[in-house]
Structures are given as C-alpha cells and as structure tokens.
C-alpha cells in the first residue's frame, strides 16, 4: 500500500518533486504575468517625474477619451449581442446533429486562424466597398446597395466576424452537457418547444452564455485593429487611443492610466464569470 503518498496530497497524486515541478511556472507567471501587470499600475499612477498622481486615470473623463470609451462600450455590447443571437441557434443545431467536437472546433475556430487575422479582416474591405463584391451582387439583383465601410457598422461586423467562434464554443460546450432526458421529461410533462427552451434548455446553458459574453466582450471592447482596418482612421475606440499613446505619443503614463480604466471593465467581467461559471467550463475554449 502506498498510503503516505495519498495522505500528503489529498487532491491527487504528486509526481516527482512537487516543489521542483512547480518552480518553473511559478517563476514564469511571476515574471511575465504578475510583475508586468504591476508595472501598468506603477506607470498609470505616476507622472513622468515618478510622483504619485491620479491624473492619468482621471484623463478618461476628458471629452475625447470619454467619447472613445463610450463608443467602444456601445459597439462591443452590440456585437456581443449579435454574436449571442447568431451563435445560439448554431450551437443548438450542432448539438442536435451530434457533430464531432473536434472537427467542429477545427472547422470554425482553428482553420480560419491559419489565414492571418489582419488579412481576413482586410478582406471585408474588398467585400464591403462601394464597388465591392457584396455591392456588385446586390446591384446585380437590383437591390439597394450596402454602404457601411468606414462606419461603426463595419466595425461591428468585423467584431462579430472575429469573435463569433468565442461565443459558439462555450455555448456548444454547455449545451452538449445538458442531459437529453431532462429535455424529454419536460416534453413528456406537456411543455411545448418554447416552454422547454425558456425553462429548461436556456437556464441550463447560462454558464456557457456568460462565458461566451465575456470571451466576446473583452476583445471587442479593447480592439484597435478592427476599428483601424474597417472604420477608416476617423473612428477612435479606446483601444486606438491607448495604442497611440504607446506607439506614437510615447506617453506610457497616460496609456497605462487608461489601461487601468479598461482593466476595471475586464475585472467586472472576470468576477461575473467566476460567479456564474464555478466549474470553469467556459474559460477553456
């Protein structure tokens, strides 16, 4: 019997030397995750001379920054909702069809990634332009043209396009976990399709919904690439402002301060996820 091993580690078996095994990751996450985050707080809360200041954070209230933040929040909420509405039926269909998990992930998520994400987003320019592919098709069908390139609509489209898989996967994961006999029981007890959905399927898929929302909302809120590529150069999101502070203005203190404001939103999101998704099933892809 090898009892002593189990007593030492009730959670599982420890293989090899526990401390030596933990060390590399402990070092890595301290050096490249924790310390860098602390640096953002350090820079965000100090000015160029190194003195403590809240100015960089309060800068979010200035009209141009507040406008960028507001637009980012608005567009990311819209695209998160669009993703949810598009993804839910897809996840339900795929669950019912019993599509193999692996081939589905590869097809919708992994394979497109092998075509560079900047190029894929840029391709929407070609598709959306005034004389682009979609408008050629529309005019061929004598339909009114779609003139959304360089508008916030195009940015929303780009966000939905890029982040839809992040919504589909957690939804699909939580829907496949629903025991079919629960659904059958609801039907046997006389619930119709809508009732079954509203009172059984949807409530059971809440963890997936919440983590899907987190996975889409955070990158949508903070993107600067999509707005750059599809919004023309006139529409500034909060991500664009921060990026410019770092790469063009070299004002790291202001950029860090604005990032801290962004992190507050991310933190709210993480807390929400932790509350609704205790098993951590959604944070995995």
């Amino acid at each position, binding site marked *: 019997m090898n009892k002593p091993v189990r007593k030492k580690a009730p*959670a599982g078996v420890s293989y090899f030397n526990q401390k030596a095994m933990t060390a590399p990751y402990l070092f890595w996450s301290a050096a490249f995750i924790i310390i860098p985050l602390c640096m953002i707080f350090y820079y965000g809360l100090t000015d160029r001379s190194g003195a403590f200041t809240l100015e960089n954070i309060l800068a979010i209230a200035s009209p141009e920054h507040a406008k960028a933040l507001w637009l980012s929040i608005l567009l990311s909420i819209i695209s998160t909702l669009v993703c949810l509405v598009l993804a839910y039926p897809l996840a339900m269909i795929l669950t019912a069809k019993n599509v193999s998990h692996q081939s589905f992930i590869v097809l919708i998520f992994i394979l497109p990634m092998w075509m560079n994400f900047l190029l894929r987003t840029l391709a929407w320019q070609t598709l959306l332009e005034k004389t682009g592919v979609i408008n050629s098709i529309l005019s061929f069908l004598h339909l009114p043209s779609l003139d959304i390139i360089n508008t916030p609509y195009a940015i929303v489209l780009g966000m939905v396009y890029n982040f839809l898989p992040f919504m589909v996967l957690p939804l699909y994961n939580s829907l496949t976990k629903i025991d079919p006999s629960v659904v059958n029981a609801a039907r046997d007890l006389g619930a119709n399709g809508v009732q079954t959905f509203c009172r059984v399927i949807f409530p059971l898929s809440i963890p997936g919904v919440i983590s899907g929302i987190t996975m889409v909302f955070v990158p949508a809120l903070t993107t600067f690439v999509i707005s750059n590529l599809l919004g023309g150069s006139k529409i500034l999101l909060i991500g664009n402002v921060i990026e410019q502070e770092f790469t063009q203005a070299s004002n790291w203190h202001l950029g860090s301060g604005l990032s801290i404001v962004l992190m507050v939103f991310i933190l709210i999101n993480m807390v929400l996820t932790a509350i609704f998704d205790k098993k951590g099933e959604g944070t995995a892809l």
Partner: protein
Amino acid sequence: MIKTTAQKIYVALIFIFMYAPIATLMVLSFNASRTRAKWGGFTLNWYVELFANEDIMQALYNTLLIAFLSALFATVIGTVATISFSGMKRRNRAIFMSITNIPMLNAEIVTGISLMLLFLTLGVRFGFGTILLSHITFNIPYVILSVMPRMKQLNPSVYEAALDLGASPAKAFFKVVFPDLLPGILSGFLMAFTMSLDDFIITHFTKGPGVDTLSTKIYTEVKKGIKPEMYALSSLIFVTVLILLILVNKSPKPKDKVHKAERN
C-alpha cells in the same frame, strides 16, 4: 423536413460568413492587377514572385520559428506545471488556475503593453527575444487548459499500482501516466502554435525595429496597400494546412490515438 432544411441553410450561411473573406483573399492572390479594388485577369505571377521576395520570406521564417519555439517552450513549462498541480492543495491550485486565466481573460492590448513596460524597464533590447518570451507567456495557458482535462481523468491507482509492482517513480510516470497525457499535450502544442502564428497585437507591442513577423509586416503594409504576394503566401499556407488536416482525418489510425481537442 422544413426544419432540417432551415437548419442546413442557417449553418451554411454561418460558414459562408466565416469563409467569405478567406475565399476573397484566395481570389485576390490570382489577381493580375496590383490593387485589390479591381480584377485585372488571372495570373500565377504572385506565387512566383513570392519566393523572390526576401522581406516576406524573412518574415515567414521569423513567424514560423517563433511559433515553433514558443509552442515548444510553452508545452514543456505548461505540462510540467499541470503535472505539479495534481499534487497541490485545493487552495493553491485555485490560485494557480486564476493566474493561468489572467492572460486568457485579460485584453490582449493590456497583456501587450504590460510586457512592453516590463522590457522597457529592464532595458532589454526589443527584437526576436522579446517576441518569443511574450509568445511563450500567452501560450502557456492554452497548454495547461488542454492538458488539465487529461490530468483530471487519470486514475491515481494505476500509478500507485505501477509503484507497488516495483517500478521506479520515473518509470511508472513515463510508462503509465505520460501516455495518457500525450494527446492533451499534443493538442496543447498545436493550439499554442496556431495562436502564436495568428497573433498580432502582442507582437505589435513587443517587437523591435527590423524584426517582423507576417502579422506586423501586413500591418505596416495596410496603409500603402498589401502586396499581392502576401495573399499568395496566405493562400498557400491555408491550403497546405487544409490538405494536412484532410490527410490526417482520412488516414486510418488506432482508436486510442485519436486525440480530441478536449478543452473543458
């Protein structure tokens, strides 16, 4: 009947949505005109010129090397970390898992600038090394989340049985435990490789002058107009991966080796 047809149409529409840009890029790679705005006839010219373009080839080399090395390091560090998690107290493991989740849940731009500030403060020269370190950092969580489910499925008694039967801990581990983890490790590696390959934002903040990956090269070209060779290269990469995937799925393989991307 109507319902299944509607379902099929819906799934088809989503796939058209996901793949329309990819198809567009492939068509553009055969476009004789240099601008993407108009069709100038069919040509294979860009595929030939691609291999003569040293800038693009260098960027491709950097991209692949960084993807491979970062996936490799992340796989080793992530796997060792996941194995060490299994013997941890519940509370410690929860702390480690939350740390692991930080790069996953945090915005890429924040991760990017946090690493940029770190390197700036340390006075490290920006370049290949800083990109590699950053990619390893954001790849580790993908490996951990991929190996973790395998780790949870392990039956500890099997390892103990091996020890009871006289195997040394190392032998017992590599003969009994490791083969069970391998599919998770492999899919973690592939996931990390793909993530590194497609990354732009974090590379953008941690790269130095003169070092470019395909992503950063494309980004600098956006304003001037993308070189059609880039479309040709992307189409080649995409089609290669597609063919590989089809071959892997078609080839018969032993049942227990089928590795699923089990990530939850």
